[in-house]
């Protein structure tokens, strides 16, 4: 760089270097500081969970997907909160308009969030958030002895 300035690509490179440095620095210091006393139990993948068997490429229960879908929807809608947050509390604008600016911004966002919340309420009421447990289907056993015989037997015992 002739003028001592970096180009746009240079900024991206700086970001890359900075990111790598940050991660490396964190990991390295942690390695230096932490005590190291491994045992077999500690070295398992999930210290307090079950050991994973096989690969993770198996099929998961559909219920996970439904929850994930709902989560993605609500999460992505929040993308609008970020630009909103930058204008909401703009001190200059607030003073110029005597506080009206903040009110308008707030009301609009509240309306938006309420509509989102209504979606959640709909899911909840319709029962899509329920974690449906598989119904225990015990083995059907047809006894050759009729049921009346049992009840008679119980009665007699009383």
């Amino acid at each position, binding site marked *: 760089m002739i003028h001592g300035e970096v180009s746009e690509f240079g900024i991206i490179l700086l970001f890359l270097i900075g990111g790598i440095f940050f991660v490396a620095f964190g990991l390295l210091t942690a390695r230096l500081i932490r005590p190291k006393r491994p045992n077999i139990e500690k070295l398992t993948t999930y210290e307090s969970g079950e050991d994973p068997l096989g690969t993770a490429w198996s099929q998961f229960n559909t219920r996970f997907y439904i929850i994930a879908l709902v989560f993605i929807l609500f999460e992505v809608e929040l993308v609008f909160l970020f630009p909103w947050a930058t204008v909401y509390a703009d001190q*200059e*604008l607030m003073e*110029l*308009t005597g506080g*009206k*600016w903040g009110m*308008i911004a707030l009301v609009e966002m509240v309306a938006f969030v309420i509509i989102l919340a*209504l979606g959640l*309420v*709909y899911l909840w*009421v*319709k029962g899509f958030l329920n974690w449906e447990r598989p119904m225990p289907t015990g083995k059907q056993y047809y006894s050759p002895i009729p049921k009346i015989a049992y009840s008679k037997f119980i009665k007699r015992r009383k």
Partner: protein
Amino acid sequence: MEIQSNILDPIFSLSQDLNYFRPELVLLICLFVCFFADLLIKKNKGLWLSSLAISGVLAYLWFSYTQFIGLEEEVYFMSDLMRLERSIVFVKLIFGVTTLGAIILAIKTKWIQIPLSHTGEYYFMLIALLLGSVLLPMANNWLVFFLLMEFLSITGYIITSFNRDKSSYEGAIKYLLFGAAASAIMLYGISLIYGMTGSMSIGDLANGMELDSGLLSLGLLFVLLGIFFKIALFPMHVWLPSAYQGAPSSGIVLLSVAPKVAALLFLWHLTSIIELGKIGFDLLPMFQWQQMIGILAIITMLGANAAALWQTNVKRLLAWSSVGHGGFMLAGVLTLSAFGQSTLLFYASVYALMNMGAFLLVLLIKKRTQNEEDINAFRGLASLHPFLGVLVTLLMLSFIGLPPTGGFMAKFLLFSAIWDTYQQSGEPIYIWVFAAGLFSSVISLFYYMKIPYLMYFKPLNSKDPKLVSLKSLDYLMMFLIVVALMVLFFKANWLMNILNSLNFAL
């Protein structure tokens, strides 16, 4: 950026502009009411939901009507994001009536699968589809346009999957993948247009001729592709037959009219801007937009009508016929004159009516034969229900475009508009469109007439144990539709006078 103290003024003036949105606001309220009714009401849910939805649409129709009377010229509002003219308000009325028909069909068809727990959702989706399609032609900004296009498409996917059986989901996934790809292509096109014109306003496209137009015309081509997909023109129609076959019949009544006509009206706006800006498609030097749209209209009319000849499933047959009618209406766009627009709107109204009748017929047949959709279910029906036979014959005559029905008037007016344009411009493409339209009408005779033929000349398959006989109340609505079609033939000038009185921006 300097800040003035009157920075809030535009926001308050926007709330003034809400006056133009009265019909849409009514629909929005109706959506929320349906939503809460679905959640809160436990007793008589179906009745409540249906009456709420119907009254909501009726209120919407009333507000559109007052808007139709009150509006005089084209207005731009919401800081030029939206625009409104009388032809758009007229289309609002058509869509409203179609939605009403769809809801009535949905009520009448309790015996068709949609269970009560989904009824609220179904009405919600129908009304949302209506809302999207009345807003789409009003868009004057690429962002608004894209948003509404997606709104329409996504409600469309959901309505298609509403039967919740194998064919329904198959149709939905075809519709969805094609639709999503088309909208992604459209987005890319919009981004190119935005880059070239530096403005999101659709009207600014008219300045496009001063710009380096290579990328601009590519972007425009991509956007047009997305719109053509929505209208389902011939190469972009692949999803449509399966989607319509799988979707609930009452849903298709709306799905095949509202998004299609809305997209056509938007296309009208866009082509008039292209014409105004004299934008050529530099990448394809032979093509002006007239050639492109004309060729598409020809392929669509001929291809769809030829493909319909081999169909044996009634819904699939009607789906192909819907593609064909899309081609006819596209030919109307080609004229780009005030008379052309009147005839296009006339055609759209007649088509909406006919379509309602046709899917009512499908539902009647499904009721009679317990969910049979095969065309052979019509065998010998005329001997059992002679009156229904007459009605169906008239309806099919209207589909072909023969007198004494509104279908004839619609095609007659449309073709005369094309002929007029040919006389004025002398471009050979118009005469080709004209000829293809006539020829495909002749082709359509063969498959539409199959249904009356089976009804009158084939013996009744009386051994079928599943037969349910129809009551005359079942086809009261059909009677009304056919009467309306006849009125549109004998008193076509009533509607044409209204349509001609719309003052256009042309």
